């Protein structure tokens, strides 16, 4: 079974600085997707960024980028120029290519200090 591990239960960053959240996963599949989701204290979970396993280029969405290391099965999220609104719980997730359901990590709570 696929597993997703987030080894950092909590992280903090100074406003305007950069922070990297770690995620590793285990799979024997070659076709899969990886995601980072953000869940602010208001609870609504939103998609931050996604990465297709077959793409070598790291995904980028504005201030959010990933470092996808397929051989190492690592998928870290970098948040640049951190803002107070980035404070949330971040979940890394894996989904097999032709399946619908996803496996989520335990989450990392990010605090942004003004």
């Amino acid at each position, binding site marked *: 079974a696929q597993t997703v591990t987030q080894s950092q239960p909590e992280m903090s960053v100074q406003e305007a600085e950069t922070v990297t959240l770690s995620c590793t996963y285990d799979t024997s599949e070659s076709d899969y*997707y990886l*995601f980072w989701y953000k869940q602010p204290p208001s*609870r609504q*979970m*939103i*998609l931050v960024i996604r990465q297709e396993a077959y793409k070598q280029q790291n995904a980028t969405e504005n201030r959010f980028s990933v470092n996808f290391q397929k051989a190492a099965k690592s998928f870290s999220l970098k948040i640049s120029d951190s803002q107070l609104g980035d404070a949330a719980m971040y979940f890394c*997730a894996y989904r097999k*290519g*032709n399946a619908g359901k996803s496996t989520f990590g335990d989450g990392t709570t990010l605090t942004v200090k003004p």
Partner: protein
Amino acid sequence: SAVISQKPSRDICQRGTSLTIQCQVDSQVTMMFWYRQQPGQSLTLIATANQGSEATYESGFVIDKFPISRPNLTFSTLTVSNMSPEDSSIYLCSALEGSNYGYTFGSGTRLTVV
């Protein structure tokens, strides 16, 4: 991306009663899922809601306890039956528009059983 309206947002229920949670999507989606989340923890998949047929339940979850309906491609309900305090949790519905997409989530239902 799709928008999901989930209700109720919260409820306090007596043990032994049932609660039905509804999710309405503003567009047709290929798949819908129901998750349970303890505050500050990861998501646990309850079941995949299949349109026009019985839901597919994960290990540890049964239809008698969590009956699910999905009569069309935009709507699903989850019922938490014969509730006990152990059922107190946040229940989230999610939808998948296509294999290349991430999930869209509802805003969640915070259930407290007393």
